[in-house]
C-alpha cells in the first residue's frame, strides 16, 4: 500500500515533467478549456440578463452552483485523468494497459498515475473565478460550519465524478463503441447538476436522486450555503449527505472496476 502510494507520486512527477516538455500545446489546451467554460457561463449570464432569475434563483446563486461544479469537475478531471474513459479505452485497445498489468504494483494506483491533466488548471482557475464572482454578486453569510463544509463538498464531488470516470473506463473493457454514451453520463451529468435541480422535470430529478445521487452533491449543499428554503421538501439533513453520496458512488465504482478487471482478464479483448 505504501509502496503503491510512493510510486503513484513518482509516476505523477514523470507525467508532469513530460507534459511540461510540450509547453506550447500545454498552454494552448489550458486556455482553450478555460475559454469553453467562460463561453458557457457567459451564455447563462445572458439568459439572466433577459429574465432576471430562474425559478427563484438569481444569477449570483446559480453562479455559485456552477462555479462549485466546474471547480470540482476540473479538479477531478486532473486527478482522475488516467481513468478518462476516452483515454483509458484507447490504452486498452492499444495494449498499453497490458503493460501496466505486467508491473508488480497495484493496478488502480498505476492507472491513476498514468496521466495527470495539468492543463485542467485553466478550467479550475475559471471555476474558482466564477465562484468569486458569485460571492461578489450574492454575499454568503459565512458560519464556521459553512467554512468547514465547503471543502468537504468539493472533495465529495471529486469522488462522485471520479467514480463516474471509473465506471466509464470500466465499460470500455466490454465495448469501446459506447464512449459517447459514457460521456453523456460524465460531462452531461456535470452539466445537469450545474443548475438548480428543481427546474427539471420530476422524472429527471428522480433519476439524479435515486439512481445517481447527484442531487445530494451540490444542489442540497448549495441550499445550505445560500440559506435558501428547500422547494422539494427533503429532510433538513439532506444538505449534509454530500460526502455519503460521494463515497457511495466511489465505492460502487471501485467494485465495478474490479469486476471489470476480472472480466478483462478472462476475455482478453
Amino acid at each position: 500500500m505504501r509502496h503503491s502510494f510512493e510510486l503513484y507520486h513518482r509516476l505523477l512527477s514523470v507525467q508532469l515533467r513530460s507534459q511540461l516538455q510540450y509547453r506550447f500545446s500545454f498552454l494552448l489546451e489550458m486556455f482553450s478549456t478555460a475559454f469553453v467554460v467562460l463561453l458557457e457561463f457567459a451564455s447563462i449570464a445572458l439568459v439572466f440578463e433577459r429574465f432576471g432569475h430562474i425559478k427563484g434563483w438569481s444569477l449570483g446563486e446559480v453562479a455559485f452552483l456552477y462555479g462549485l461544479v466546474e471547480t470540482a469537475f476540473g479538479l477531478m478531471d486532473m486527478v482522475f485523468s488516467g481513468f478518462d474513459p476516452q483515454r483509458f479505452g484507447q490504452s486498452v485497445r492499444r495494449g498499453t494497459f497490458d503493460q501496466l498489468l505486467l508491473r508488480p504494483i497495484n493496478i488502480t494506483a498505476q492507472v491513476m498515475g498514468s496521466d495527470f491533466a495539468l492543463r485542467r488548471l485553466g478550467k479550475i482557475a475559471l471555476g474558482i473565478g466564477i465562484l468569486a464572482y458569485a460571492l461578489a454578486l450574492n454575499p454568503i453569510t459565512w458560519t464556521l460550519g459553512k467554512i468547514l463544509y465547503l471543502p468537504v463538498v468539493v472533495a465529495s464531488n471529486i469522488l462522485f465524478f471520479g467514480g463516474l470516470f471509473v465506471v466509464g473506463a470500466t465499460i470500455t473493457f466490454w465495448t469501446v463503441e459506447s464512449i459517447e454514451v459514457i460521456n453523456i453520463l460524465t460531462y452531461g451529468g456535470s452539466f445537469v447538476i450545474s443548475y438548480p435541480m428543481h427546474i427539471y422535470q420530476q422524472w429527471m430529478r428522480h433519476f439524479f436522486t435515486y439512481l445517481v445521487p447527484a442531487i445530494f452533491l451540490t444542489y442540497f449543499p448549495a441550499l445550505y450555503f445560500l440559506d435558501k428554503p428547500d422547494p422539494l421538501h427533503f429532510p433538513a439533513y439532506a444538505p449534509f449527505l454530500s460526502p455519503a453520496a460521494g463515497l457511495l458512488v466511489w465505492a460502487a465504482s471501485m467494485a465495478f472496476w474490479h469486476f471489470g478487471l476480472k472480466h478483462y482478464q478472462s476475455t482478453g479483448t
Partner: protein
Amino acid sequence: MNIINVHQLHKQFKVSKHRRGMWGAVRNLVSQDYQLVEAVDHIDFQIGPGELVGYLGPNGAGKSTTIKMLAGLLVPTGGILEVNGRVPWRERQAHVAEIGAVFGQRTTLWWDLPVIESLALLKHIYKIPEARFQHNLAEFTDMLALAPFLNTPVRSLSLGQRMRADICAALLHEPKILFLDEPTIGLDVVAKERIRQFIKQVNQARGVTVILTTHDLQDVEKLCERVMIIDRGRLLFDGQLKSLRDRFGGRREMIVDFTESYPDVAVEGAQLIAHDGVRATYQFERDELTASTLIGRISSRYRIRDLTVRETEIEETIRRIYEKGLLES
C-alpha cells in the same frame, strides 16, 4: 523441477458475430450472437529452468494467448497452469515480479523520459536494491551497447535502440523467466544479431529461462534447441529443433556440376527441378533415398565434377507442417 507446468490448458474466446448494414447495427445493440473460438485448445508442456524455447506458429495460432496466460494477463478457461510454482493470474503482483516480458512493438518505457530515467523508475517499481541495479545496469549497458542513447528520450530512439532498451528494462529485476514476443521484428541484420547474442548470453550466463515467439526462423535456428509449434490452438510439435528437421525435413536438394553438358540427366528416385548447361538440381525425399545412393546412381551414368547437398530450410519445414498438418495424421 519444472519452472513452467501446463496441462490441458485451454482458452475460449467469445467472438461476436457482427451483422452488417444499418439494420444489422441496430440489431447488434439489442442482441449479439456469439461464436466460441478455442484459441488455445488443451495443450500440455513443461519447461525446465534455464531452457531457451522457441514458440512458433502462424498469426492467430494461439501464441500470444498462451504467452498472455503465462504472463498472468489472461485467465485460462480451464486446465492447469503453474509458473514458478504459482498460478499467474491468481497472484498477479507476486508473479509479475519474477518474470520479464517484452511484447513486440510495444514499449514498457516512458515515452517522454530519457532511457536512464525510465530504468530508474523501474528500479523503484520492482524494489531493486541500488547495488544490484547498478551492477545489472552496467552489465546490460555494456552488452547491449546502450551507452550512446541512455540520456535520449524514448520517443527519439530508433526501433533497434528501443528494443534493446526494452530488453534491458525487462531484465533489471533479475526475473527467472523472460518472455520475448517478436524481439527482432523490423530490425536490420546487425541489430538482430546483437539481440540474439544478448539473449543467448543471458540464458547461458544467468540461467534465465527464455520463451521466444518469433516469425524470424533465423532467431530459432541460432538460439533455440527446443521448439514448440502451435497452429489453430493445438500444439503440433514439441521437441528438439534437430529432431524436427530429421522428422519433417522432407525433401533435400542436391546440386550437381557435370564435367560436360548432357542432354538428359534424369535419374530414378529423384526429381530433376533444374537443368542448365552443366549444372543440374535434384530433389529427393530424405526417407526414400540417401544422398550416397543418389550420388551412386548419377555417377554410374554421368561424370560428376562437383556437388553440394542442401538441407531444407527450417522455414520450409515449418511451412510444410502448417500446410499439411503433417502431425495430425
